[in-house]
């Protein structure tokens, strides 16, 4: 009987699915105003997303203290990105799901530090998944953009943005904001979710 209690059951699956939907919608809504301006998107939008979604992640992992939560969270997001046609990001999230779950093995779900760590990993994967393709498939992107009528100036401006160096900066920035987000998440748990009787 004890073994069953270790893995996510029906109740947890429903909770994870609902919170993941919420997270996805929030990410979409926050990204929209920044979508036209890639520089801001990379740093500011991601920062906001990581802080806003911190409580969602912390709530999810603390309410469902069972193995498989992080994997399902990553897997569902991967599925979502496959469905909307962004396969590369999908692979990154799947990797996040696997590695993140490994971080949580043992007594991970009772350990705020590990929860925070997996969230930081999430933010890193978010950046890498979104922007690494611009490095590996640079030629493809350049051809796409010029075919659609972008001027050479604009294309260069964009590709100069997506260099390994700036991506590294973005990863560091997102990790910092992810830790802020996790911290905010725990504060919110203490201030709201616990007294409200939600946990």
């Amino acid at each position, binding site marked *: 009987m004890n073994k069953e209690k270790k893995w996510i059951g029906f109740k947890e699956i429903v909770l994870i699915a609902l919170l993941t939907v919420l997270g996805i919608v929030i990410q979409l809504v926050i990204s929209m105003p920044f979508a036209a301006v890639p520089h801001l998107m990379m740093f500011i939008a991601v920062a906001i997303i990581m802080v806003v979604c911190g409580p969602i992640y912390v709530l999810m992992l603390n309410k469902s203290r069972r193995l498989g939560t992080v994997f399902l969270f990553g897997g569902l997001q991967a599925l979502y990105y496959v469905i909307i046609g962004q396969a590369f990001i999908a692979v990154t999230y799947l990797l996040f799901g696997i590695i993140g779950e490994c971080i949580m093995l043992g007594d991970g779900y009772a350990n705020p530090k590990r929860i925070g760590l997996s969230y930081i990993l999430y933010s890193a994967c978010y950046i890498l998944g979104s922007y690494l393709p611009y490095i590996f498939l640079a030629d493809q992107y350049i051809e796409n953009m010029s075919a659609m009528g972008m001027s050479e100036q604009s294309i260069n401006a964009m590709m100069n943005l997506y260099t390994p160096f700036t991506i590294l900066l973005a990863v560091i920035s997102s990790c910092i904001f992810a830790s802020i987000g996790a911290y905010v998440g725990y504060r919110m748990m203490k201030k*709201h979710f616990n*007294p409200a*009787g*939600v*946990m």
Partner: protein
Amino acid sequence: MIKLSGITFRYAGAAHESESLKDINLTVNAGECILLTGKSGCGKTTLTRVLNGLCPKFYEGELSGEYLLAGNDTNELPVNEIGRTVGSVFQDPRSQFFCTNTTDEIVFSMESHAYSQADMTRRLESLWEILPIQHLLERRIFNLSSGEKQKIAIASVCAAEPKVLILDEPSANLDADATEQLAALLERLKRRGHTIIISEHRIHYLMNIVDRMLVLDNGRIYREYTKEEAVGLAENELLQLGLRKLIQPRFIPLAPAKPGIMPAAISEKIYLQKGNSQILQGLDMRVFAGEITAITGSNGAGKTTICKVLTGVEKENSGTVCYGGTILKPKERIRNSYLVQQDTDYQLYAATVMQELLIGLKETPDIRKQACMYLEKLNLTEFRDRHPASLSGGQKQRVLIAAALLRNRQLIVLDEPTSGLDGMHMRLTAELLSSMAADGKTIILITHDMELIDSCVTRIYHVGEGKIANEYRIH
């Protein structure tokens, strides 16, 4: 069919201390219809959760005592096994719907238990005989009315033909028509041999159907009445038990309001269209300060829309709304009125009750003192530092009313303020509203609660087809 012996249950975690059960002994025979009622917090919901197995297997806690279901010890059974015999219809159909399509929702239970297609078809056809929902098949659940949603929820649970049916406050969101239909349906289900257990505050519509009525108090069975005894209860006994009355009051039509008295708010020729339907068609309404006006009408007639337009949450297509003689735009209306909506979950944001009152206001010592005064007036002082989400439905309502009073809003509109409340709290609300009206405020209520109207309402507007159809007054 059901035998509870010495059932004692306590939720894990202190938040639910009050909703525990103590030493319940109950025997229900097959085909009986039992009514569970009592004041808020008496343990009705917990008892239904023990009966359908959710406590302790879903809602964790300590359970002691024995629960025999059709002769089997439920301790040995997993929750879904108990669910095969005991079907539960919860209070909010919205969060019960798993599927997006009504047909899928109805057959969900049968599919999960792997019935064959022929079996499912047969059971559906048998279900139709007592619950005609054919016109509701193959629809998206998002556009159904609350009565229709409830029919689907009941159909979904009855499809697998469980021997026992548990319903939790089924009439909470239903208008008078729909409540009658519900009573008829329950009777047909009983005739088919189902054992029915209903947890309700509004007990008047059930008096023909129930065999026994159990009044719970503080987790124990306080009184048990047979049908005859229950119907024979005098009014003061019902009041003492904190229950609602059994007889529904009647109203008489009223001549339109006398000219000369300045209304507190007027809406003239309001038209509002949403999507394809014209919700408000030429609404003319006057409400007066110092009065409590009730807006009644069947579900979907536009009552909530009227109040949203009046308070400025929604913008009308044409027409005007005046407060005290001045035409106001929607944003201005919001600043001068307060709408307490039906679902309190969406209206509470702060970490403590005190902060909830102060949100959006400048926190001066003066305001804090005023806030404390209103908390005192509404019996909320002991909850001052509690998280609003941990309060009961009635307490949350009072917090919202306190917030309205603190902001000195003269026009206060409440949407179904008593829909989940027991008799005692409903009367407290009626008293509170009366005292607010006596202070000169203008109060508008949307309600189906006839007893509430009887207790404190002076004018009734009955809405039909997007405008006021009739005006009534209590005699």
